[in-house]
């Protein structure tokens, strides 16, 4: 016994196993029939599609096991298309598997690497070309070319400047001003404190000036959630307590995390839940974050009542609402 380890040898491609259809004409005819049936089924599918498109109305419904009741027109067109396409594919594959030659073929791989002679030629060609261009010998051309290309490369960036305005203080401000009434969303009705029972919530927006239109941009900044608790349930600093009115507290509805609407109020726990990433805010502690990825409490709106007894903002928001940004100082 020698000391060399002898590996197991490659026995080579296994002997070809013939299919029934290769030798038996009956099997071949059967396979041919099967392929034809599949192609025929495809045609039926197309007919179903055409029939459903033209004759089935879209207010008709049909019952299918597992799926239940569903629109008949859409199902007919869809299943017709599905059968038509699937059966062409199945037919083609079955044809290839049973009737087309299935003897394995061997092809040789060629090395990708060019031979050394070609590589040397390549290097020579590039070098010759480079020296013909003469960049190396002509630094003035090189530098001025660099200047030209570099400057013109900057212009696309410049041309995009008017994509949008600069933010300026847009992110820092909302429409809320002192004395603005809170109105219901939807409905635009002003609200009195006695309209809200303990445990009630109201979705609100600032009242519009006459003739003013409210845009989605406004809603995205101004949406405010009103919640009424019993005053003794609050656990607030004196200042924040003064921002409430008879147990009614107001928060920006736009989540301080990533801007979803935080309107999910759990009455018993006094928690607000944002359904996007499950940040949870404690209403009794000025919407302090008690769970989840939000890093800041929801900004609280300072509210009071006006001369006619409707709830109004006493001041605008004292901090930017919504998600954080670089310029936000806290």
């Amino acid at each position, binding site marked *: 016994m020698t000391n060399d380890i002898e590996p197991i040898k490659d026995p080579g491609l*296994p002997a070809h196993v013939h299919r029934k259809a290769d030798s038996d004409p009956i099997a071949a005819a059967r396979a041919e029939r099967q392929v034809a049936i599949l192609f025929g089924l495809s045609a039926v599918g197309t007919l179903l599609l055409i029939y459903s498109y033209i004759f089935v109305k879209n207010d008709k419904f049909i019952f299918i096991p597992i799926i239940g009741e569903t629109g008949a027109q859409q199902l007919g067109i869809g299943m017709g298309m599905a059968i038509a*396409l699937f059966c062409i594919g199945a037919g083609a594959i079955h044809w290839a598997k049973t009737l087309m030659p299935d003897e394995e073929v*061997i092809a040789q791989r060629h090395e990708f690497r060019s031979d050394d002679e070609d590589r040397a030629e390549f290097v020579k060609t590039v070098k010759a070309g480079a020296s013909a261009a003469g960049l190396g010998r002509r630094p003035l051309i090189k530098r001025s070319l660099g200047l030209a290309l570099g400057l013109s490369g900057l212009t696309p960036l410049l041309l995009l400047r008017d*994509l949008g305005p600069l933010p300026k203080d847009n992110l820092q401000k909302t429409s809320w001003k002192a004395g603005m009434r809170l109105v219901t969303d939807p409905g635009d009705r002003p609200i009195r404190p006695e309209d809200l029972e303990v445990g009630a919530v109201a979705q609100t927006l600032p009242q519009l000036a006459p003739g003013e239109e409210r845009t*989605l941009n406004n809603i995205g900044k101004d949406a405010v959630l009103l919640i009424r608790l019993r005053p003794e349930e609050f656990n607030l600093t004196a200042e924040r307590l003064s921002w409430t009115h008879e147990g009614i507290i107001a928060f920006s509805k736009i989540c301080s995390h990533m801007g979803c*609407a935080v309107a999910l109020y759990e009455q018993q726990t006094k928690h607000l839940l944002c359904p996007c990433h499950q940040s949870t805010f404690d209403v009794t502690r000025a919407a302090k*974050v008690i769970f989840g990825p939000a*890093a800041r409490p929801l900004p609280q709106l300072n509210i009071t009542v006006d001369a006619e007894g409707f709830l109004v903002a006493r001041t605008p928001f004292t901090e930017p609402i919504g998600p954080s940004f670089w310029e936000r100082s806290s």
Partner: protein
Amino acid sequence: MTARERIAGNVAGYVDDRTGAAKWMKKNLTKVFPDHWSFLLGEICLYSFVILLLSGTFLTFWFDPSQREVIYDGGYLPLSGVKMSAAYASTLHISFEVRGGLLMRQIHHWAALIFMVGIVVHLLRVYFTGAFRKPREFNWIIGVGLLTLGIVEGFLGYSLPDDLLSGTGIRIAEAIIQAVPLVGSYIAFFAFGGTFPGEAFIPRIYTVHVLLLPGIFLALITVHLMLVWYQKHTQFPGPGRTEKNVVGYPLMPVYMAKAGGFFFIVFGVTAFLGAVASINPIWLYGPYTPGQISAGSQPDWYMGWLDGLVRMSPPLETHAFGHTISWNILLPGLILPGIMFTGLALYPFIESWATGDKREHHLLDRPRNVPNRTAIGAMALTFTLVSLLNGGNDIIAQQFNLTINQMMWFSRIGVLVLPPIAFIVTKRLCLSLQRADRDLVLHGRETGRLVRMPNGEFTEIHEPISAEKAWLLTSHEQIAPLELPELDSAGVRNPGVLKNKLRNRISRAAAVAVPKATETDRLELEDHH
């Protein structure tokens, strides 16, 4: 010569006179493609892309990519008189007044989901079999690029109808942009043409979704396929298959029929899903307004893992010198995915650096024979799966009577603890399988037939395995670990050679294997019998 042959000959001659096509057509029509079902996964992506182009073009004939406000007066009564964007209204029109419109919307969206599923399973096949090694590293990078762009394209696509669910997704995307330090608020205002939501975003992403990204996809997919064509497809090891050949079937007619047929299969399955399963029922979501939200809001699955990462993030935010950095957004939303995708793209180079293997490979690995790579893959999959599950934590909690709080904590801890466990378990599994292979070669297959010997002992009859199987189980290479110098020429451990120490260690870990059975072992065993 028949009339048909004569005409065909004339046409071919006409084209060849002008292009010289006969020469390369002859060569390429007989090109050999190896046949394994897992090689069709990439085709799922390719055909889904074609389906997306076709169904998407259909949709563009009716879709109005404008955010201008309209009042709905179409056929869906629960939205009568409701204010909405023209984009949403036109999508309702496609769904309810255009025959086949809703079907096409559903086919388009299901095709997008299948496209992404195809990319992931194709990536997993390429990864676990090592098909990304030289000379195919560049193709791997293109593939990772297609994955990333696919995620973006899908997100932009389902945001086009401007419904409540996708609009919420755009709000979150805007928050990520806004959170970028220094330039975030500027880029957000440029992208949206001002404050969120504005009226510029949907028309702009329409251009990106319909023109820019499909163009880039076409270019990348073409290069991707040309490289596969030119470099020839890899093949699984087996009898008669070597690094220097390709064993399979010719393009014409077999491969054309099978691959062409598979296109119709993928289209048919997608149409089937479009017919029997509802997807993105925007009429139920309602039009987008920032003051509304639904419980259980998630992005499509290929972004679900990102959402899960954001949900489990700790509430980290720093405020310094009048500026805020939201780590709770940047880390899960940009930094971590950036690291993951970069690592993924560079993996072929990392692996060849770690193992020192710089040779060409055309034979695939069986995953069990590369335990380190397989275990790293299992680790990455576990991480992604935990994140993905957390993305749906509210729906899962509701279904299985758990709490979202439990799911969140499970995910926060699980995403750190479970991947290393997956690594260890997978590596052990691979080594066990190697041992089982070795036993199979040396001792044969257990037949389950017991024989009692004269002395009373029971033994099981083992059947020797075929020569082809034995070759399959032992043809793989077992790379020796690197032994780079850990001290430089002066005998000092300087930082330059610290790299070598790391490489040595990693390649040693990668080289852990059960020695494969050899003919010598077999003969020795026979001697014992």
